C-alpha cells in the first residue's frame, strides 16, 4: 500500500521535473527571441517579422504561466518537497515576472513604435544583449538550484555582473540621447525604452538575490 503509492510518486516526480525544465526552457527561449525581435526592430522597424517574434514570446509566456500553475497544483496536491516548496514556487513566480517584463517591453515596441536614430542602435543592441545574457545566467542558476546546488553561485555572480554592465550601458545611452539635438518629447520616449530593457536586467538581479538565499537554505 505504501509501495504502489511510491511508484505513482516516482512517475509524477519525473513528469514534474520535465515541467520545471520546460518552464526554464521557455524563459531562456523568450530571452533569445526578445534579442532577435529588438534586433529586427532596430534594423528594419515594426515589420511582420517583428510582430511574429512578439507573438512567439506571447505564446511562450502563456505556456509558462500554465506550466507554473500546473506545477504548483501538483506540488501542493501531492505534498511534495514540503521543506522547499515555498522557495521553489516562489522562484518560479519570480522567473515568470521576468518573462512578463520581456513580453511587456516588446509590446511597448509594437504599440509605441519608437523612432530610434541610427547613432543609438549599436548601444541599444548591446544593452539588449547584455540584459538577455543576465537572463540566461539566471536560467542556468535556476537549473543548478534543482540539479547541482553547489554550482548556483557560479552563475549568480554573472547575473550581477551583467546587471552592472546593463546599468552602465543604459546610463551611457541615456546621456547620448539627452545630449543630442532631438526634441525633449522624443528624448523622453527613447528613455522609456532604454529603461524597459534595463529593467529586465534589474529584475534578473532581484531574482538572483532571492535564489541565493534559497540555495543557502538548502545546503544547511
Amino acid at each position, binding site marked *: *500500500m*505504501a509501495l504502489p*503509492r*511510491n511508484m505513482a*510518486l*516516482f512517475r509524477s*516526480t519525473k513528469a*514534474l*521535473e520535465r515541467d*520545471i525544465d520546460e518552464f526554464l526552457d521557455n524563459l531562456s527561449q523568450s530571452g533569445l527571441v526578445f534579442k532577435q525581435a529588438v534586433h529586427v526592430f532596430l534594423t528594419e522597424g515594426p515589420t511582420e517579422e517583428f510582430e511574429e517574434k512578439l507573438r512567439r514570446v506571447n505564446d511562450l509566456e502563456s505556456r509558462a504561466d500554465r506550466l507554473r500553475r500546473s506545477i504548483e497544483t501538483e506540488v501542493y496536491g501531492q*505534498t*511534495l*518537497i*514540503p*521543506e*522547499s516548496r515555498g522557495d*521553489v514556487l516562489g522562484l518560479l513566480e519570480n522567473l515568470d515576472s521576468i518573462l512578463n517584463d520581456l513580453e511587456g517591453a516588446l509590446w511597448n515596441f509594437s504599440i509605441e513604435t519608437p523612432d530610434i536614430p541610427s547613432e543609438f542602435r549599436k548601444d541599444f543592441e548591446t544593452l539588449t544583449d547584455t540584459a538577455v545574457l543576465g537572463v540566461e545566467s539566471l536560467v542556468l542558476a535556476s537549473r543548478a*538550484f*534543482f*540539479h*547541482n546546488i*553547489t554550482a548556483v553561485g557560479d552563475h549568480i555572480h554573472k547575473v550581477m555582473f551583467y546587471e552592472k554592465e546593463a546599468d552602465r550601458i543604459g546610463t551611457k545611452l541615456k546621456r547620448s540621447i539627452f545630449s543630442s539635438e532631438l526634441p525633449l518629447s522624443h528624448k523622453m520616449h527613447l528613455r522609456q525604452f532604454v529603461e524597459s530593457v534595463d529593467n529586465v536586467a534589474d529584475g534578473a538581479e532581484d531574482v538572483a538575490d532571492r535564489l541565493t538565499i534559497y540555495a543557502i537554505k*538548502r545546503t*544547511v
Partner: protein
Amino acid sequence: MEVAALFFMTSGLFLGWSLGANDAANVFGTAVGTRMIRFTTAAVICSVFVVLGAVVSGAGATGTLGKLGSVNALPGSFMAALAAALSVYVMTKSGLPVSTTQAIVGAIVGWNLFTETETDTGALVKILSTWIASPILAAIFAVILFKLLTFVLRTTKLHLLRIDAYTRLGLVLAGAFGAYSLGANNIANVVGVFVHATPFTDLNVAGLFTVTAVEQLFLLGGLAIAFGVLTYSERVMRTVGEGLLPLSPSAAWVVVVAHSLVLFLFASQGLERFLAGQGLPTIPLVPVSSSQAVVGAVLGIGLLKGARAVRWRVLGSIVTGWVMTPVFAAVVCFFGLFFLQNVFGQKVYREVSYVVSPPAIERLEQLGMSSKALGELANRRFETAVRFRRALEARADLSADERRLIMEYAEINPMTIDPERFPTLARGGLSPAQSEAVRALAGRTFTHKWMLAETLARASPEWRFLADEPLNRSRNRKLQGRLDFVFRTFRVD
C-alpha cells in the same frame, strides 16, 4: 486462563500501549511531522513491523531483563508494569520525553527491594552500560551515515524532486526497520516482568508448529504496542518534529536508520550467532531506550553542524527525565507492592528460601569450595535472599563468585513430578526424548532446581547444556526456557 490472570496482565498491556504511543514517534515522528509520509501509512507500517520484531526477535533482550530480577508472581508483575506505566504517563504529561526501558528497570529494582531479592548486579551493570553506550553509538552511526549521505547527494547531482521521492521511500523503509528493531528490543520492557509468572502455556497449532508461552506473551505485548501506535501516537508525532534540532528530511532519515541500527544491534540473536561464529566479541542483548538512541543520533548530527544549532536546554530536560524516571518507578512500585500485598492481600512474590542442604554442600565441595566454610552454614534456613547474602558476606573467606554459587545451589524450590500434571507438560514444546525423561521421574520429589536439572541431564542428552560459548548461547537459552517450564509445571506451592 482465569479472569484474575487476565486482569493482572492489563498493566503490561497498558505499558505496551504507552510504549507504542510514545516510541512510534522515534521511528516515524520526523517523517510525519515534516509531512513526508501520511500518518496512516506510518501507523500501519509501524504496527505490523513492531509485532513482527517482537515475536521473531524478542527473546534475546527479554532474557537479560529476566535476569535482572525474576518477578515470579503475577500480581508482582502487575504492579511492576503498572509502576513503570505510571512513571511513563507522569513524565509524558510533564512534557519530558521518557524512556520506557528506564521505567521498567526502576520498577524491577523496586520489586527486588520490596521482596528482598537479590538484584543481579551483573545484569544491572550490563543494562546501565548499554544505556550509556547506546546514545554514543547512535551518534557515531548518525555522523557516519550523514557524511555518507551528503557525499552521495553531492556527487550524484539528483533533481530536488527525485531526492524528495527517494527520501520518502527511504523513510518508509527505515521506518519499517525501525519498528521491527523497536519491537525486537523493547518488547522486553513490556512483557519481561511476566516471563517468569506467565499464565500462558505453549500452544500447539493444528499439529504444525508450536507457539510457546513466551512467544504468545510477545505477540500479546506486540499487539498492545501496535494498539498504542494506532490510537495515540499521532499526537506525539506532531509535537516531536522540532524538539532538539530542526532536521531536514534527509537528516531525519539518517536519525531513524542510526536509531534502528542501535536497537537492532542490542536485540539480534542472529547477529550474536554470526559474530560468535566468526570468533568476534558479541554485543550484549539488552533492552535499550529508543528515545535515548534518537537523542544520541540527533546530537551527533547537531555537533556536525556546529553545537550552536542544538537546543541544549531541551537536552537538559531530557536527561533530568531519564534520571527521575527509574527512581520514580522504583518508589511507586515499592509502595504499590506494599498496598497490593497488605491491603488487597495479593501474593506479590513467591517466597524463595535458602538452605545449604547436604546435597548442595556435596556438590559445592566437588566444585572446589572449602568444607569448613560450608560446614558452618549447613542446614540453616534463610527466608530471603538479602538475609542469606548478608550472612554470606559476614564470612570474609568467601569470594563474590563463591557466594553467588552457594546462593544458586542453596535455593529451595520444592517440586514433585505429579503425573496429574503431565497433560500440561504436553503443551511445553518438549521433544519426545525430553518428555520421556521427565515422565520417567513420576512421583519423585526434588528440593533444588539443579537436582532436577542434573537428573534430567543424566537421563537424556537433550537436557544437557552445551559449553557457555557465544555459539551455543541461543540453544542454551532455549533449553533454559524448557527447564523453567518444567520447574513451573511441577512446583509445589
